[in-house]
């Protein structure tokens, strides 16, 4: 049944469009390749609270081969803020993937250089 609905969705109009904006600020946590990141989510300019955020990362120059196990972000100090610790494999530019679920569904990709 689920796959039948998915098949119908192939030809459906986009009804679930809910674009989310995100800011990402990552700081070295004091250990090799480990970074603490603060994620700020907005929807229509307002902070988006109550979302579940899964944070993964992929190296743009080697997509799918160098990636990290996604971690769940926890709510931060302010509304719309979330915190996650990333354990990377190496320095360089990473495409950080924020997969958002809960009140809205979306995926935002931010390129961040980790040195």
């Amino acid at each position, binding site marked *: 049944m689920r796959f039948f609905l998915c098949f119908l969705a*192939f030809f*459906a109009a986009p009804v679930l469009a809910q674009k989310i904006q995100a800011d990402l600020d990552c700081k070295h946590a004091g250990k090799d390749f480990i970074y603490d990141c603060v994620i700020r989510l907005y929807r229509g300019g307002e902070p988006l609270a109550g979302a579940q955020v899964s944070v993964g990362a992929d190296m743009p120059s080697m997509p799918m081969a160098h990636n990290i196990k996604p971690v769940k972000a926890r709510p931060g100090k302010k509304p719309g803020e979330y915190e996650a610790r990333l354990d990377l494999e190496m320095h360089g530019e990473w495409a950080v993937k924020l997969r958002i679920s809960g009140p809205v569904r979306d*995926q935002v990709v931010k390129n961040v250089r980790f040195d």
Partner: protein
Amino acid sequence: MDEYAIGVLTNVGLFSFVALSAWLVLVAGELSFGQQAFFGVGAYAAGICTAMLGWPLPLAVLAAMALGAAAAALVGLPTLRLRGLYFAMATLAAAEMLRILFELFHWQIAVGAEKVGPDGTQGFRGIRWMFERGFEPLDFLALVWMLLAGMVVILVLIENSRLGVTIRALGHDPDLARSAGIDVDRLKLGVVAAGGALAALGGALFAHHNTYIEPRNFDIMLGVHSLAYGLIGGLGTVFGPLLGVMLDIGVLEAIRPLQEYRMIAFGGLVAVLLVFRPRGLLDEQAVHWLKSKL
């Protein structure tokens, strides 16, 4: 199934398309370091079709495959006159040219409140077709594997047909194949175009899985990996490159506790494997032995 497992299996499926395309060209006797370019053509084409032109995904995928095949044929026309290492170098050069073209490609249109489309080195964001239609990661995984299974069935049918035997004959000795009346140039061009379409299909799915693509996604590392999968898994059967992808991703994930050393460990494993099995695990001899036992 948790999100991580779904992600790993989706990556295995997506990698398999480009690995199969490199394997197909290898079986026809040529070493291509350029399949990542057609993966990129597919990704950009499908992204433009759905995110900018509003096409449904199936149509976008078909357009991407057609464009991937056309691009591969266009590259193949002048380069297939070359042999061996010269062909490999020419495909690498062509792939780099295409990647640089992606870097120079700027075409954005307003979709709602934001601009969508390729923006040179800044990449192409907002390929959100899957999210806008409520597809879950598990649905996408099923889609990738169904399409992959379909492609594998087609390749197995070709492999066991007269056409498959002809392609293998061409790969083993093109001069002998030509003397047997095979139109070597046309057949090779057909194989290269089919490889381009296969890679483009993978690219189209990759773009919609990732929602974001950029020129660096399609650089030489992807080409090396895709070629290595056929060589690791074996050239004797269509399942060889699939085995190569599963070993690569599987071993890399299994040795994740080794953290930054895991790429060194993996590189060592590949080197040892290629010393002892130069045509891969499922080479022609292994496949012949397996068929005799079944």
